């Protein structure tokens, strides 16, 4: 066997990780621009479209198993307290209640570095205190209120900037603030001293709540020793690993499934406490158990994008950016990690002197989780505004200033050459589409006397290279149809469709003859659907699996048709040789019930090259100076992500990223009552996600240029790029319109009016 173990480094969400993977055979040469692709690169409607529009698509929430019990969780009403006593006797006396778990009776279950899922000290409003299983959801909801808990209240701090103060309540022995990232190049101290202009500013971003429409949840069932868990997740293998760690059972006894899922945006990366609770109850009570969060719980205990406090000092020497210092503090709540908002500052622009620090701040609030480009959205909001502020001060067009720092073909952080970087082309297209020539340094008149118009733009840097391990198998049936099996999941990005296109292209089948089966740990491993890495990690493995199936098919056909294998090819479902077409089914059908199984694995990325995605967003806005309302008129989003496999679904991704970015910068803000630590708007009324009326004209453009150095399909990731530059582009357009800058997201009417009053 021609099997090799490879060790490789790769980037996920700004962090470098080491990966070990097994590869088989040789990688394929990448498809070039002249490969004559028939299916890849075309805007095919989604292969699962019918399931999704008919209501037949089954989401985890739609699973109702016979005899299934329902769980409700009792959550702490206090931001920090010791749980001294739990008395569930009144709850257990209610007819239909089947069990209660809490810190005094729950079995040990390791969870994210702790030994139990019910802490003795609860650390935020919404922390799990107890869980209750009942015959119906209504009974569970009623009964959970009858659990009596004796709390000893402890001091807390429920605000980022309060927690940063020296005299703040210390939530850990080491204090509340820890350094989480540091980077330097050049000599910023000297550079600021010799600069001609220095601008300093403070930027703030608010906590953004994911509000995936399907809340976090799982259904667990035991059949003897075998635990089956259905979960709304971005990573079935991550859930499996979480269950193994918590329950100490072997992988062979765990199967995790996720067919359709209703949004995650980074927050559904592995097993949750609900998964473990459902599994423990299911084992104890001998019935299937469902544990789903309500909307309010979702907004307390299922993750969020950290609020940030950032300071930027930026200097010019002549008409160039000479130095930048960026310090950032992120509210991680009770999270164990934190994203790095300084990533774009380190790597996006060619600036000679750079110094950045990022800090994790612990507060008595729910843990952060990854949220679509964690850190990069917040960091770009500060960085790209600071660049505009500097441009204003030196009397330079902000786009012209960026151009001087965007041409570099070498990654300033690693010193390695980029495989492909077309950022300047993104600028050219964006400027043309938005009509950048209409921008005036002092803004322009709007469509009414009380409205001002402005233009702004910002750039995007992200990884998205993908990496091993990822594996796939293609099962070619005797009738010429195929099934792709892969452990990845389609979280709404169109993965099923894109992978079906890759199989059909490589194997020579019609798209309709390929079925895609995902979201099952019975398949081979695939990585988490996050970090813009699914297509670029899984896609190349899928193509290799299809190629392996094709080669086996041709070998079989060669024997049966008595033609040399090299003289045969597969084309639209038929084996073709000189002057002869034979349907695959006619060939394979001669062998009774034989399924060709092609295997594929993801090969490592080249080691001496930097693989990144780039882009730029341009915004045209109007601001009503009487009310402070921002009207977004037009967004142009241009992205450089290598080959676009499916322009239809890719454009949808970009529109979705833009709209989530609009929410971040204009309306979305978790509001916490500082004296009680309670979230005041953990619902879809008080927390403002964009509605259809908030959507402007959006123009989407791609630099559709295959990155042949990246992998065998030439594609990089697109999930995160389209949210990254949008908030900064809007902020810059607002500042251009009204001549004063709002440095806090979201840019609400109140903040605009406050800024206008401060105008000199």
């Amino acid at each position, binding site marked *: 066997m021609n099997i090799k173990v490879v060790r490789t480094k790769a980037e996920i969400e700004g962090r470098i990780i080491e990966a070990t993977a097994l590869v088989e055979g040789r990688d394929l040469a990448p498809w070039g621009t002249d490969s004559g692709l028939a299916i890849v690169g075309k805007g095919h*409607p989604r292969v699962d479209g019918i399931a999704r*529009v008919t*209501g037949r698509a089954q989401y985890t*929430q739609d699973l109702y198993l016979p005899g299934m019990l329902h769980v409700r969780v009792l959550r702490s009403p206090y931001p920090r307290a010791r749980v001294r006593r739990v008395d569930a006797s009144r709850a257990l006396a209610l007819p239909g209640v089947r069990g209660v778990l809490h810190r005094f009776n729950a079995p040990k279950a390791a969870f994210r570095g702790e030994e139990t899922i019910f802490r003795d000290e609860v650390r935020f409003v919404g922390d799990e205190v107890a869980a209750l299983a009942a015959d119906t959801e209504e009974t569970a909801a009623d009964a959970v209120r009858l659990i009596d808990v004796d709390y000893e209240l402890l001091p807390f701090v429920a605000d980022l900037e309060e927690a940063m103060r020296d005299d703040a309540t210390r939530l850990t022995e080491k204090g509340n603030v820890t350094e989480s990232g540091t980077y330097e190049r050049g000599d910023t101290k000297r550079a600021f001293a010799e600069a001609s202009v220095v601008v300093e500013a403070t930027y703030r971003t608010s906590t953004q709540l994911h*509000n995936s*429409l399907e809340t976090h949840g799982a259904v667990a069932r035991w059949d003897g020793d075998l635990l089956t868990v259905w979960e709304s997740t971005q990573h079935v293998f991550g859930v499996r690993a979480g269950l193994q760690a918590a329950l100490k059972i072997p992988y062979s006894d765990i199967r995790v499934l996720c067919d359709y899922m209703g*949004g995650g945006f980074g927050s559904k990366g592995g097993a949750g406490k609900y998964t473990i609770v459902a599994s423990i109850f299911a084992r104890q009570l001998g019935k299937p158990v469902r544990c789903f969060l309500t909307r309010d719980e979702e907004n307390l205990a299922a993750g969020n994008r950290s609020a940030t406090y950032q300071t930027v000092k930026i200097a010019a020497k002549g008409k160039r950016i000479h130095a930048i210092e960026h310090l950032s503090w992120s509210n991680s709540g009770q999270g164990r990690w934190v994203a790095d908002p300084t990533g774009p500052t380190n790597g996006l622009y060619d600036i000679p002197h750079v110094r950045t620090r990022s800090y994790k701040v612990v507060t008595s609030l729910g843990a952060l989780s990854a949220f679509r480009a964690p850190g990069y959205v917040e960091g770009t909001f500060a960085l790209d505004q600071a660049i505009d502020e500097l441009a204003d001060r030196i009397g330079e067009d902000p786009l012209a200033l960026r151009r001087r720092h965007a041409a570099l073909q070498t990654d300033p952080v690693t010193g390695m050459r980029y495989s492909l970087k077309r950022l300047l082309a993104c600028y050219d297209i964006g400027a043309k589409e938005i009509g950048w020539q209409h921008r005036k340094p002092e803004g322009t008149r709007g469509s009414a006397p009380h409205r001002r118009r402005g233009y702004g733009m910002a750039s995007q840097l992200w990884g998205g290279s993908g990496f091993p391990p990822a594996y796939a198998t293609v099962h070619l049936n005797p009738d010429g149809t195929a099934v792709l099996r892969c452990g990845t999941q389609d979280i*709404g990005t169109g993965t099923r469709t894109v992978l079906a296109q890759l199989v059909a292209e490589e194997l020579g089948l019609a798209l309709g003859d390929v079925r895609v089966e995902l979201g099952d740990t019975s398949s081979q491993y695939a990585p988490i659907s996050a970090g813009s890495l699914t297509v670029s990690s899984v896609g190349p493995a899928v193509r290799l699996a299809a190629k392996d199936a094709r080669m086996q098919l041709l070998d079989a056909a060669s024997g049966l048709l008595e033609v040399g294998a090299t003289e045969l090819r597969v084309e639209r479902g038929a084996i073709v040789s000189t002057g002869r077409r034979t349907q695959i089914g006619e060939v394979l059908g001669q062998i009774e019930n034989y399924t060709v199984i092609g295997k594929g694995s993801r090969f490592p990325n080249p080691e001496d090259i930097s693989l990144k995605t780039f882009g730029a967003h341009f915004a045209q806005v109007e601001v009503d100076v009487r009310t402070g309302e921002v009207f977004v008129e037009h967004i142009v989003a241009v992205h450089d992500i290598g080959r676009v496999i499916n322009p239809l679904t890719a454009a949808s991704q970009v529109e979705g990223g833009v709209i*989530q970015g609009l929410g971040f910068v204009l309306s979305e803000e978790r509001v916490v009552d500082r004296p009680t630590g309670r979230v005041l708007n953990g619902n*879809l009324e008080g927390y403002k996600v964009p509605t259809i009326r908030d959507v402007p004209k959006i123009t989407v453009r791609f630099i559709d240029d295959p990155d042949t150095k990246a992998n065998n399909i030439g594609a990089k990731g697109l999930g995160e790029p389209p949210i990254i530059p949008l908030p900064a582009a809007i902020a810059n357009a607002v500042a251009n319109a009204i001549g004063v800058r709002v440095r806090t997201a979201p840019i609400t009417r109140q903040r605009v009016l406050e800024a206008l009053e401060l105008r000199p």
Partner: protein
Amino acid sequence: MGRVPKASSYIGPGAVDVALEVNGDGVSVHVPPHRTLLDTLRETLGLTGAKRVCDEGMCGACTVLLDGEPVYSCMTLAVACAGHSVETVEGLSKDTNLHLIQEAFIEHDAFQCGFCTPGQIMSCVALLKRNAAPTGEDVLRAVSGNLCRCGAYPNIVAAALSAAKKQARR
């Protein structure tokens, strides 16, 4: 919003039999008076197309038609539907023939995760029932009560307008 029938004759306290029409079929369900139409459709009748997202009338993912008018089924009691007709996304397509709106949603990629899609589709179906030639503004109004977190909004508008044009040609 649709006319919601009075429930006075069905007040509990225990579960009662309620006869209604769902997707053209007469059905009888045995439900407590506080049970919502949404939970009745999903748990009692196995029609899980309508989704439970907020359960308090803020998102529109549970939208179904009651006597042809769109309602939030999480804000509608099952007992209030006695003698009335309910249409869900499952009732739109006959055999393999999709409704015009469903076809247009696929063609225009008007969904990503798809969780809000049944609600969006029912709001659009209601629009096309009462307005044969809707404008873009009409579409915005019709689906302004349906949240989509993936941001498929531009394609939803395109799909609704395209379906309306096709309907006009038929």
